[in-house]
């Protein structure tokens, strides 16, 4: 009897270790999401919208999936690829997160995504969508909810062509997303480019570039400058008296609620492309915008909306599999077929795990409270998908 008890205890202990080593104990713990984004430095304003959008999505989901707690671990990449990589490494190795999300800048994502995928975890992008990950380097565990980068400027290219502009001057920062945006714009614009200029990332002063572009006499100027760079460029463009001379366009992510308060009235009347607008007429969006304003006291940006959609998509996929994130094949399938009410309206995943969505035109104007907002002007493209899906062989990818 006594001996049996001892044996039983040993067996239980051994069993316990066995269970531990197989990781099934983790199933009792929370679902862990590592959210790495840029919250410090000049681009921190974007990160704040990303974080708040994701927090709101978690709040709307109740912070649980099938009764299992969802824990979000926050990280800051400081707009540095090496720091982003270190933060992600730590989340994978010591926090053992199941899903990573939140990175804004494509160069940081490209530097940080490998350890996530190598460890068998999922990366669900709430912003950056560099072209390699949509094409040749696509991966079963990588999902881009926000966009493939090119998308941000594809609809704008279409619009600029339809408006009859024939000689376009394009400027963007010299990093992967800048190149992607240029490619996206040209794919749908199809006309002559006066020039494509890539400036150093984080540049403060654009007087030299503005002088060059004026001398080139284009009939339209298109820029991609997220965060502080956009504020600098638009302000300086207006101060040089250019707004009335050559129309300035931008795709999604340059002139929005992260930059409008600082740009001020210089941007009034500007047309920009967008993948989302605060005025989109669907119930999910109305709830998102109202709750975001109530919680954070400001209008959300496109960054916040994509981050919110990302949180809602993850929640919906987790709910569909009863919160069993350890079953990776099931979670992948649930993501691929995810059904949720996206605030941007039309949304589904393409075969390369990037979205098929609509592209809108907005114009900067004043709302009833005197704030600068992006007034909705219509849909430019329906069911927009990226150009790289054909290069992606998901079955062979690993």
């Amino acid at each position, binding site marked *: 009897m006594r001996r049996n008890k001892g044996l039983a205890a040993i067996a239980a202990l051994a069993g316990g270790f066995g269970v531990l080593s197989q990781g099934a104990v983790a199933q009792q713990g929370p679902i862990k999401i590592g959210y790495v984004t840029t*919250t*410090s*430095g*000049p681009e*921190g*304003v974007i990160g*704040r919208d990303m974080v708040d959008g994701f927090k709101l999505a978690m709040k709307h989901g109740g912070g649980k999936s099938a009764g299992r707690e969802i824990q979000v671990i926050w990280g800051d990449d400081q707009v540095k690829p090496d720091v982003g990589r270190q933060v992600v490494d730590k989340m994978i190795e010591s926090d053992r997160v199941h899903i990573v999300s939140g990175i804004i800048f494509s160069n940081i994502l490209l530097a940080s995504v490998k350890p996530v995928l190598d460890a068998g975890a999922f990366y669900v992008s709430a912003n950056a969508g560099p072209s390699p990950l949509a094409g040749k380097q696509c991966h079963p565990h990588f999902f881009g909810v926000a966009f493939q980068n090119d998308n941000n400027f594809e609809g704008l290219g279409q619009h600029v062509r339809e408006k009859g502009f024939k000689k376009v001057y394009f400027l963007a920062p*010299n990093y992967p997303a800048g190149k992607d945006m240029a490619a996206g714009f040209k794919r749908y614009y199809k006309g002559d480019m006066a020039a494509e*200029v*890539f*400036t*150093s990332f*984080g540049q*403060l*002063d654009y*007087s*030299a*570039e503005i*002088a*060059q572009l*004026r*001398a080139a006499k284009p009939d339209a100027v298109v820029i991609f400058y997220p965060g*502080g760079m956009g*504020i*600098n460029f638009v*302000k*300086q463009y*207006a*101060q*040089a*008296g250019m707004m009335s001379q050559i129309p300035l366009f931008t795709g999604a992510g340059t002139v929005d609620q*992260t*930059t409008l*308060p*600082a*740009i*001020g009235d210089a941007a009034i009347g500007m047309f920009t492309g967008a993948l989302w607008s605060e005025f989109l007429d669907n119930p999910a969006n109305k709830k998102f915008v109202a709750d975001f304003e109530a919680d954070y006291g*400001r209008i959300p940006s496109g960054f916040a909306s994509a981050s919110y959609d990302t949180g809602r998509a993850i929640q919906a996929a987790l709910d569909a599999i009863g919160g069993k994130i350890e079953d990776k094949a099931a979670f992948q399938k649930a993501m691929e077929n995810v059904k949720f009410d996206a605030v941007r309206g039309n949304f589904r995943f393409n075969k390369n795990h990037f979205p098929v969505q609509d592209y809108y035109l907005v114009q900067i104007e004043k709302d009833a409270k005197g704030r600068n907002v992006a007034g909705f002007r219509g849909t430019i493209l329906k069911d927009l998908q990226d150009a790289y899906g054909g290069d992606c062989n998901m079955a062979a990818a690993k």
Partner: protein
Amino acid sequence: MSVSLFIEQLLNGVQFGVMLFLISAGLTLVFGIMNLINLAHGSLYMMGAFLAAAFVKITGNYLAALALALALTALIGYVMEKLVLQRFYHRSHLDQVLVTFGLILVFNDIVRLIWGVVPVQFRLPEPFSGSVQLIADVQYPTFRLVILAVGLLVALGLYVIVVHTRIGMWIRAGASNRPMASALGVDVGLVFSAVFAAGSALAGLAGLMAGSISSVQVGMGEPVLILALVVTVIGGIGSIRGAFIAALLIGVVDTFGRVLLPPALGSMVIFMLMAIILAWRPKGLFPVNA
């Protein structure tokens, strides 16, 4: 490149250089005279911009707002020197770097607490927010001409004060031999505090000038600090004249580098220039104690 475009780009380069001079003048003054590396110089630059933006909003009077912002930035610098930096004059440069780096983080978080992370708006008064026709084909933003004028005035003013006044003499005396200057009846501590406050005001001035053309936001001082350090080192640490010439050189080289060279090379060109100059003259163009 046509002649008028060349003139415009030259003007851009000189204007950028003058801007850089405004930023680095205070840094080189403190660095050279007090032998103190103040990385928080960029934070004072940021404070100048934020305070000016806030006062413009409150008072509605641009000039009054600028004067208030300058005075307050000088006061912040004065308090910072009295409370913290004074204890670090005799410590190693590494200690100074560490404490002033810490101050950067403190300032950034103070600004984040008060103003938040969204860049704030800095409205220019009507006559300065547009552009003027200089010569045929060259339309130039009015405020950049103001920056040019202010920068040149500051350069002249500093030169006169440091080289031709009694205060300037005290400053130079305190810098070259502190105990001897003290023995001769100069209150070196007071002189240094005044220099630091003046350096802070210069940083604030640069910040509020820059705030009018670029975005006013948390962390705006850091990229600028790097350029200011480059200017200081090329010019010769502590030399106002060196800082002025180095700033103009960098402004012009950077502007033409960006326009004429491919982007990867264009953003490197000022650092290559620095490497070449330091290889040729390790103490900078105008070494102070040569």
